[in-house]
């Protein structure tokens, strides 16, 4: 089942000219048919949007107004003091740099490794490749959370304890990434490879010069997913990092929650700051994420 090939025709944005095109005779009928689903849609959207909105609006209130009754939706005099305080007090800039390093390096490596493996699995058939495919499948059965203790010992014995590499390296092996690339390369016609072989191209240069550029959309999709996974990681960095100077953003925020008396102003500010990079990445690359055929990767 290839859902990527399907034309996307259901994107009925509010600005779509359809409504205008309809003549007056059918307009009322169409409108009546649209009322119920549209209302339902936007009631649901509000249920999903309001918590985030309330959270962000609250973060703009001065600390004194956070609990003042009656609660007001919009901050009376918006301030970014919570953000400033979070950024300064909790080493947030350091956490941010650490998390960015982890995300960028892990994402580049994940995409690279997954692309190579996915291509090999799709375009060569050796018995041991099929066996390795089963091995990759097995990793989905035994997620890192299940092997916390032994995985910790392995990474510690390899000398990566309390270092950012200790967070990055175990995360590079992802079944989803390999599946996404495998699924994509299966759709690339073999004739393309044959033609290049006849022209005398070496196997690896076929991969690097022809296949890698072709797979750019999948690379971008996996890159966004990987960035999100690493940005949001919590339990593994918590185990790996001992030194507060190496903490990631999520651990920093969780340490604010764990404090005896929660300073909500700082916590709200810090939380909103930590949301920003992902929301920006998402809004920029929205169409890749929304069109991502996650199905293809996971069904196999």
């Amino acid at each position, binding site marked *: 089942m290839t859902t990527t090939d399907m034309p996307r025709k259901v994107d009925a944005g509010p600005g779509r000219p359809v409504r205008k095109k309809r003549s007056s005779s059918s307009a009322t009928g169409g409108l009546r048919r649209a009322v119920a689903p549209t209302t339902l849609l936007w009631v649901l959207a509000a249920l999903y949007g309001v918590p985030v909105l309330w959270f962000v609006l609250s973060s703009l209130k001065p600390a004194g107004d956070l609990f003042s009754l009656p609660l007001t939706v919009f901050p009376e005099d918006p301030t970014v003091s919570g953000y400033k305080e979070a950024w300064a007090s909790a080493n947030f800039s350091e956490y941010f740099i650490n998390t960015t390093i982890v995300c960028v390096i892990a994402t580049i490596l994940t995409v690279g490794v997954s692309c190579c493996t996915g291509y090999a699995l799709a375009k060569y058939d050796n018995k041991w490749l099929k066996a390795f495919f089963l091995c990759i499948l097995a990793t989905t059965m035994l997620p890192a959370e299940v*092997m916390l203790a032994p995985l910790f010992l392995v990474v510690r014995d390899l000398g990566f304890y309390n270092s950012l590499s200790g967070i990055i390296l175990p995360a590079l092996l992802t079944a989803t990434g390999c599946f996404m690339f495998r699924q994509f390369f299966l759709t690339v016609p073999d004739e393309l490879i044959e033609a290049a072989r006849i022209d005398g191209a070496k196997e690896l240069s076929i991969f690097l010069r022809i296949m890698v550029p072709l797979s750019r959309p999948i690379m971008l999709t996996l890159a966004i997913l990987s960035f999100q996974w690493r940005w949001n990681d919590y339990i593994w960095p918590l185990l790996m990092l001992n030194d507060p100077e190496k903490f990631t953003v999520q651990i920093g925020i969780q340490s604010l929650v764990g404090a005896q008396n929660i300073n909500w102003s700082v916590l709200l500010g810090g939380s909103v700051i930590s949301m920003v990079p992902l929301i920006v990445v998402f809004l920029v690359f929205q169409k890749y994420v929304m069109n991502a055929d996650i199905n293809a990767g996971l069904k196999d």
Partner: protein
Amino acid sequence: MTKRASDASDVSVSPPRRRSKYTLAPLVLISGNVVLFALFFVWPAVIGLVYSFTNYTGVGAFQFVGLDNYQKLLGDSTFYAATTRTLLYTVLFVPLNFALSLLIANVLVSKNAKGASVARIFFFIPWLLSPIIVGVLWRWLFGENFGLVNYFIEKVGGSAVPWQSNADLSLLVVVVAAAWAWTGFSMLLFIAAIKNVPTSYYEAAALDGAGPWRQFFSITLPSIAPTSFIVILLNTIHAMKEYAVFASLNNGGPGTSNNLLVQYIYQTGFKSGQIGYASAASFVLMLILMVVAIIQMMVNRRVENR
């Protein structure tokens, strides 16, 4: 004779030639993942299994203690509590998430709903947020003395609900928060599946006079059955190893009543240094996950063969 990977007959006619011809290139290509697989999957899995039969504490020497760890687990009431709480959480979370994301996917692909492409972003943003932020956000909403929800309840004449100090309510808040956060992902899978159902089915059904409900239950639901199973499987596995939302929403509280399995493993293994014992608990969690996966695969196969 062409060498098409998809040509099955070709493979059976001349397999030795193909295999000998390209060995180095695929080997180089998968080498990265093979190393990662050996280091971060095989090695920990093997030593985890070995340690589960020992009294290893993470440092120094250890002794083999046979099945002692597993026997101790069976008699450990904290472990039981964590397991039942995890199962209860899963049983509540999976259907709620399934229903919500299927409903939203259906509304989003409906041609009559206006503004679907904008609304989709609202459903998707919660999925972007880290579990830690989801926890903080819902803690802010469901605070007992200051939360927005209790404020409204008191506004309409109710009395403040103990969202944090009642263990069951506190679990319920996490279930709702997690379902809210995970809708975006399941929704994407459902949208892709629903769009793949041939429109001619619906047209034929409409001619026969089937209403929207009938169409949903007789066409949509059976057609997307494979995706439904994937969603249930992924959500179940996800729920079984949930920890971060609990950590930031109520920290397994009140007290320790909502400690889940992963938290139990974390605490026995790392807080009290009982690596051997924690490894045994890990293998119990793995067994549960495998049983879940096998059951769902069997059901899936039966449905697909029908």
